[in-house]
């Protein structure tokens, strides 16, 4: 297909789709309007029913907690799949960066090292803060876990591959990822053990606005935080392995 013909087909498609687009655009709800009652309802009853002030957490871990369990295991599958695909050429013990001949490797600037050293700890701390305050302020297990993982990434940017391998241990990440997902699922089974529906909150809800309010939601949030921090850690580890030269293959035959 020549570029000219392709452009003609594109314009023809545009002309055909334009009336439909105009119709949808003209009947859309106004900007900022939310016609569905779900959000208003949750905002109205959430604090009274669940004793938490962050309604997003109340939905994620309680009202729609079962959906989060599904997402949790989707992430586990995605991380497992990536690890299986990338594990073929690992260069774990190789310290030499893989490089294309002729491409120069510039040393890190001192400013980069300094900024990364300063920020890495604070970023992990901030991630923990976001994780712990899931029930009271915006954020939660997922956000906190991802922020912790990006703090780990600063260790690589500042200290280089060797420093990164010094803090990043795959056993720790594996345990966090699997253990976090298991913790979430076990919360559901704990409810069933007490004769309640799956994932029904059976712990005391506490005082709303308190750091440790929310009962079972706190445990589920910790599970999600562990799993996300571990999962992103595994991904970073596996991808950063790809920057090393692969180990020479042992020929046994």
């Amino acid at each position, binding site marked *: 297909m020549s570029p000219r013909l392709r452009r003609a087909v594109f314009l023809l498609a545009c002309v055909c789709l334009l009336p439909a687009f105009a119709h949808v655009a003209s009947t859309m709800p106004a900007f900022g309007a939310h016609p569905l009652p779900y959000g208003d309802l949750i905002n109205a009853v959430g604090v009274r029913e669940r004793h938490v002030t962050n309604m997003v957490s109340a939905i994620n871990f309680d009202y729609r907690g079962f959906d989060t369990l599904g997402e949790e295991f989707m992430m586990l599958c995605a991380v497992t799949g990536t690890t299986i695909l990338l594990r073929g050429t690992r260069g774990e013990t190789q310290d030499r960066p893989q490089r294309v001949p002729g491409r120069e490797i510039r040393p890190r600037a001192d400013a980069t090292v300094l900024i990364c050293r300063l920020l890495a700890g604070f970023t992990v701390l901030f991630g923990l803060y976001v994780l712990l305050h899931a029930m009271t302020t915006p954020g939660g297990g997922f956000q906190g876990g991802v922020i912790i993982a990006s703090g780990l*990434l600063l260790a690589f940017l500042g200290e280089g591959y060797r420093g990164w391998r010094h803090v990043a241990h795959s056993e720790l990440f594996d345990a966090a990822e699997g253990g976090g997902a298991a913790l979430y699922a076990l919360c559901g089974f704990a409810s069933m053990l007490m004769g309640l529906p799956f994932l029904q909150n059976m712990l005391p809800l506490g005082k709303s606005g308190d750091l440790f309010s929310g009962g079972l939601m706190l445990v589920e949030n910790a599970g999600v935080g562990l799993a996300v921090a571990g999962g992103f850690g595994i991904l970073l580890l596996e*991808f950063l392995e790809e920057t090393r030269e692969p180990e020479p293959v042992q020929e046994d035959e």
Partner: protein
Amino acid sequence: MSGLIAVLFLLVAATGTIVALSRVPRHQVIAMAANGLALSLLFMALQAPDVAFAELAAGTAAIPLLFLVVLASIRTDLITERVERPAPGETPPVQKP
């Protein structure tokens, strides 16, 4: 407030256009990170801080890094011979490892 949102919408559109128009993959990754940053600012202005956090950490830090690592590990120096595409109906030649 609506002025701020309008500016952020324009910023998202501008950075998104830069992502689409970038031709060098390395530049495109950085443009994508800038687009993620603009998006997270927009989410923040629209009072969705949860989404803004996730977008900031995943879209601005994690995903661009993974793309950069993939770009770094592509061994362009190993491509020495042109791969000939077999004609339809013809069996492709067996490649010796």
